[in-house]
């Protein structure tokens, strides 16, 4: 498909997600608690997109590979090693902002 308004339905029914390193895709998948393999595009080496994928991988939330190692990764993967992804906390931002503007 080209562009769907939301991948939420597809994500809900998936057992495994293989995605590019786009932040939206990664975060949406992790928040739904689905195991994620991030495929890094070697041709976009200096793309800042990689920063998040790298960090998520370092922290143990996702598996990473590139196009040529995808098959191998799928064959050897152990999804139980992936850690659950804790949600972000916008309430902390609200508290901070309240202090900044003087609503207490």
């Amino acid at each position, binding site marked *: 498909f080209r562009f769907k308004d939301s991948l939420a339905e597809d994500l809900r029914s998936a057992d495994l997600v293989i995605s590019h390193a786009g932040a939206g895709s990664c975060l949406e998948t992790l928040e739904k608690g689905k195991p994620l393999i991030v495929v890094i595009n070697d041709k976009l080496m200096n793309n800042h997109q990689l920063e998040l994928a790298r*960090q998520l991988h370092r922290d143990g939330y996702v598996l990473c590979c590139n196009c040529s190692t995808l098959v191998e990764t799928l064959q050897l993967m152990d999804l139980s090693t992936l850690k659950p992804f804790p949600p972000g906390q916008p*309430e902390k931002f609200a508290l*901070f902002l309240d202090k900044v503007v003087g609503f207490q």
Partner: protein
Amino acid sequence: AGGHTTEILRLLSCLSESYSPRHYVFADSDKMSEAKIRSFEQKRAETFPKSQFTLHRIPRSREVRQSWISSVVTTLYSILYSLPLTNKLKPDLILCNGPGTCVPVCISALLLGLLGIKRSIIVYVESICRVETLSLSGKILYYFSDYFIVQWPHLKEKYPKSVYLGRIV
């Protein structure tokens, strides 16, 4: 645009109704943000029926990988365009999170502040995608914002004047 809009709406999700009216400013080339914003505000109106918001489109300051020289010209044009808008809205608080669109708005606000017309508090939240480096908007607004928030500890070390609250989206 896209990811930025999703992030900023998350940032807004826990704000009290004192943060009203909300004026959303985004690029004229952005086709998807309006729908996301309306959906967010519609949901919000279920809890806070008196919710008020407006939408404004401004010319996009810079395309991805646009050259430096032409970026300066298009950004100047965007600033000239946003100055009357910022002057009309006279926001108490400007919240932005990184698209090039926010730079002209913040610069307009800074100018209005310098001219003694309106002093807005500028709060910049760098995108969650930025773990090791700042975006171009971030690099500029690090010096011009009142509060600069980063979401990863590495950036807090690199940019000591920033605020680190952990992941907030």
